[in-house]
């Protein structure tokens, strides 16, 4: 029993929060801002509690397993969740269904935890479903907007489709091997064509969830239509969780197939970077812009995944951490602007610096980090990804990646130029930033600047991966 509590602590905490939120709807008279404070407090406690009393081991016949690395991954996601709750305080406070939004997001987070900790394909599939269905419901919570419903519809359909593909793959795996246990699968993988087929189906479903090109078509519409808090959740937390799982399943379970998946990842990575960057170039809506930029980032993550080494896994996890800071900062600013002014076009950001210097600096910093300009953390993140990718000696691949970084530089800087240099007669009015939001923005900014310099972060992750 004691072991159960230490091992499943992150999940149990999340469940406790979900139930507290559910009960808070039962007549206990919280007003919106108190409820918001309660949520933020609970998330903060949850995040801090993540550092104490952790264990390693497995439960329920290897259905669930955990290790220091997994705990770290969960903490990273918890951090993202805290930042989201702080960044979008204003939007959340206005939302009529505050408790429900958080219940759904926390359930999705719980699903991701299950997914990361799963030791069995069945549990894994359940976690994946839990990580998507609640978010799809939360995507409609801009109840007065039709695009919001459209986003949810697109998301639920595409995720159902990809789940179908994944289930098909899982059933083929069960048919070919007679087990779903992660610890038994590697020994049974012998390159049989049916197994390869099953693996490809599983891989496709992953690619869908991570919006790897050519499975990215839902991404931009969903990001644009969802409420900004949910968009940030989708683009940061969901993607980060899938990246973690990607690494752990490919490196551990499907290690015998690494020649197969190396080629697949290489092609997909090139396509993802190219399409993400080229489409981001011509976006006018800031949310769509960030959506395509996040697709391009996935392409870079895939480079790290392709290296099939400890360094690769480390760099992916490190990049996700950095990506959480940078992308959340970008979404935070975009969210503030769109919440207070309703403006979502890049042109609206012209001369933004004049009126909102703090926000512009944070936004610029985030974009620098996303594009990988030194000395931001994004630079180090991409550097590690590319060096670990280089260990395979496939330099053509790396040159394409480097070219893509150039392209991305162009469009990220376009936004920065709009904010700092372009003239505009009626720029966005000064925005009153909430205290909580300010803290979160500073944390993000600090993370972007400092995470690169603290080499021990990378070393720590590397030690855990080993």
């Amino acid at each position, binding site marked *: 029993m004691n072991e159960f509590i230490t091992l499943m602590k992150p999940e149990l905490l999340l469940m406790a929060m979900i139930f507290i939120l559910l009960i808070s709807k039962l007549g206990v008279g919280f007003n919106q801002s108190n409820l918001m404070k309660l949520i933020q407090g609970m998330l903060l406690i949850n995040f801090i509690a993540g550092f104490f009393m952790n264990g390693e081991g497995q439960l329920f016949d290897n259905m669930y397993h955990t290790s220091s690395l997994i705990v770290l991954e969960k903490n990273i996601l918890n951090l993202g969740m805290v930042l989201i709750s702080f960044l979008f305080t204003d939007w959340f406070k206005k939302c009529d269904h505050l408790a429900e939004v958080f219940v759904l997001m926390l359930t999705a987070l719980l699903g991701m935890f299950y997914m990361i900790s799963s030791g069995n394909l069945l549990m894994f599939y359940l976690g994946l479903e839990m990580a998507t269905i609640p978010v799809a419901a939360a995507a409609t919570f801009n*109840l007065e907007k039709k695009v919001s419903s459209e986003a949810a519809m697109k998301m639920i359909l595409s995720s159902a489709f990809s789940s179908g593909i994944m289930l098909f793959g899982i059933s083929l795996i069960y048919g070919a091997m007679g087990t779903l246990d992660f610890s038994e699968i590697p020994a*049974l993988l012998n390159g049989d064509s049916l197994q390869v087929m099953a693996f490809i189906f599983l891989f496709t479903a992953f690619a869908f969830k991570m919006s790897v090109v050519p499975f990215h078509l839902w991404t931009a519409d969903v990001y644009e239509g969802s409420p900004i808090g949910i968009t940030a959740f989708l683009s940061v937390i969901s993607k980060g969780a899938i990246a973690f799982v990607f690494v752990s399943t490919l490196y551990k379970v499907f290690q015998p197939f690494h020649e197969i998946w190396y080629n697949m990842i290489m092609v997909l990575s090139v396509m993802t970077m190219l399409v993400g960057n080229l489409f981001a170039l011509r976006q006018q809506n800031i949310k769509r812009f960030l959506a395509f930029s996040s697709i391009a980032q996935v392409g870079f993550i895939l480079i790290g995944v392709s290296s099939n080494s400890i360094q690769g896994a480390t760099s992916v996890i490190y990049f996700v951490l950095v990506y959480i800071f940078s992308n959340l900062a970008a979404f935070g600013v975009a969210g503030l602007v769109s919440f207070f002014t309703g403006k979502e076009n890049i042109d609206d950001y012209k001369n933004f610096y004049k009126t909102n210097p703090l926000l512009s600096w944070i936004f610029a910093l985030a974009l620098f980090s996303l594009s990988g300009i030194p000395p931001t953390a994004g630079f180090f993140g991409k550097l590690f990804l590319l060096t670990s990718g280089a260990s395979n000696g496939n330099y053509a691949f790396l040159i394409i990646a480097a070219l893509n970084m150039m392209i991305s530089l162009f469009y990220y800087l376009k936004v920065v130029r709009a904010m700092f240099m372009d003239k505009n007669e009626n720029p966005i009015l000064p925005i009153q930033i909430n205290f909580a939001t300010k803290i979160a923005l500073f944390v993000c900014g600090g993370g972007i600047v400092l995470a690169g310099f603290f080499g021990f972060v990378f070393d720590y992750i590397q030690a855990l991966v080993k």
Partner: protein
Amino acid sequence: MIANLPNYIFFFLAFIAIFFAIMVITAKNPIHSCLYLVLTMFAIAANYVLLNAQFLAIVQMIVYAGAIMVLFLFTVMLLNLNADSEPVKSNLMKFAGVIVGGTLLLLFTAALRKSIGDAEPVMNSIPMQIPNHSNVGLIQNLGWVLFKDYVFPFEAISILILSAMIGAVVLGKKEKVQLSTND
């Protein structure tokens, strides 16, 4: 002949299931699609009976045919979808669909053939758990498996369903929501 009977029945049921599944997607009228889907469910349920899993079979019938498909029908009837409201797909789309589907079929057949052709010894070496056929479907045994080996996924599903329900309730609640006309 008699010894092979379950095999023949299986092939017959599989044929029925696939036939109706194809009818589901080719039928022009959505109501017909739903009804064909019900028949597909029945064929699958019959397959469970063949595996001695009566409980599973009857639950499949109650849950899918009896509840979910009724709701499907219900929705389709309320939406009043007809064969006319079926969107017309361009020939290019159809052509692309045929090519993709055909390629997938080809790949599959090839993979299965190759796998079954040369992997026979491997398949035999796998420690398959052949269930004790007369007892596998009994509720007691199912209960043991469900609440012992698979208790964790079982409980996890309940949270998933809870959250889906919360989402549905919020969306379904009557509210003074005005769809703004400008977007």
